[in-house]
């Protein structure tokens, strides 16, 4: 795993690079470790509060640990009426956790999201940003198998 210090350094001279740095860190870790956030604050010469304020503003960014694979279920109206709740139920059952939780082995986290722009195939989930469309309760196990 690349060191977050290196990642932050690489974005240092990019104007407005703080968010770019967060993206790069999250790509590596699947979340932004607290220490990385403090390091970013130092490098970009903002207060820790500001660095935190930026990271927590964006729902795609997560400060603090979460699972290796982040599963997001779209809850926006088109997916809502296409049966997103059934997909939620199937995922919770398959993984044995509730929405917002992480499996004990640290492999999966379940989150809600708003529209991810794949609305030709509602309901939609994403796993680490890869979209899966026309998801049904029956398809969930096969999709997860790729990540187990």
């Amino acid at each position, binding site marked *: 795993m690349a060191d977050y210090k290196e990642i932050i350094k690489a974005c240092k001279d990019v*104007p*407005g*690079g*703080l*968010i*770019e740095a*967060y*993206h790069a860190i999250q790509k590596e870790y699947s979340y932004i470790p607290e220490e990385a956030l403090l390091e970013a604050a130092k490098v*970009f010469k903002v207060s820790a509060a500001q660095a935190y*304020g*930026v990271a927590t*503003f*964006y*729902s*795609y*960014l997560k400060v603090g640990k979460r699972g290796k694979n982040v599963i997001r279920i779209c*809850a*926006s*109206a*088109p997916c*809502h*009426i*296409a049966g997103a709740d059934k997909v939620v139920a199937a995922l919770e059952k398959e993984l044995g956790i509730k929405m917002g939780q992480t499996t004990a082995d640290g492999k999966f986290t379940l989150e809600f*999201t*708003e*529209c*991810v*722009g*794949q*609305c*030709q*195939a*509602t309901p939609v989930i*994403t796993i680490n*940003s890869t979209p899966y469309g026309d998801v049904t309760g029956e398809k969930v196990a096969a999709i997860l198998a790729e990540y187990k």
Partner: protein
Amino acid sequence: MTKEMPVLLANAGKINPTSAAEYIAAGGYQGLQKARQMDRAALLQEVKASGLRGRGGAGFNAGMKWGFVPQAAPVKYVVCNLDEGEPGTYKDRIICQNNAHALLEGMAICGAAISSQQGYIYCRGEYPFVVDLLRKAIASAKESGALGSFDIEVRMGAGAYVCGEETALIESIEGHRGEPRFKPPFPGVEGLWKAPTVVNNVETFACLPYILVNGASWFAGIGAPKYPGTKIVTLTGDINNRTFFEVPTDITLREVIFDLGGGIPGGKKFKAVQVGGTSGAFIPEKDLDTPIDFDSMGTIGAALGSGAVLVLDETRDIVDVVARISKFFEHESCGKCNPCREGTFRCREIMEKINAGRGNENDIENLLLLSRVMQKAALCGLGQAAPSPIESTIKHFRPEYLQKMN
């Protein structure tokens, strides 16, 4: 016979979207060449005369917007809005995945008109694969020499709907929380890093090469005279053809839903359609013969917005759908101004109460009052538009609210 009209999507499936060479072989980058040979005033005039208006929701004349940029400023920016956060919308992704160079060319044409050397594309965080595609396309265009000295950088958003608002978007590129700025000054005068900045939607930019090549009057002659050109619509919900179409702007909603969309599955009847994404009004059957253009939609109290079309059949619980939508706005409100921060919270609270069967008629009156306050007093379009699904469904589908109260 109802008309699809592929202009921006005419290359779809025919060329590799990242390859400048294939785009050029299909006639690409000729509009930019032409633009660079024109003097600035003539180019601005050409874009104005085409009647091209913004495809990102506000419908502002593109040439006029560019005209506000003070020429004397040493640095100016061209910014493309690819935040595409409006639920039910994916047309900008489709444009990029099929004809990315038309976007790049359009941005460079804008660069020629305002004499800017630097463009930014702000792409939503949910589209990392589009970011990759665009970076490849930019590299290919640079290598081919087609962009000349005009540079384009791609920046990634991070899941905040409000960052589609142009000043919030600028804040986000600068690396800050994406909170809208007070206007004026407008971005055309003081935008990214305080420099004059033109912000346009992907679809707006992608029209430009075709306008330059075929002429302003060609474009002005397509579709509705006051909002000419084509529009890409994305169909979701209870519709047989859950897909996208590029259509002239004078097509009616009924044609979109029943001809192109193939009508409603399972022989069910139509109940309502929400146009323009989740911030749009719900429209009843009686208004379906309205053309989709910006001004016509305005006459029925609706908005074309992003061109998303969400169809609900007769079995759908409209109060439940609107309750879900009110949750969206509570979540996405940035919290900078009180009418929206507090208003979206209260709207969600009351909608959930009604949806759970615990509401009364007083709640409806309170929702309408809240709507008026938010429309008038919210700082940005998010808070101003958030009540429109509520208000329009109370107007057209009040019995469904009352049903939940017995």
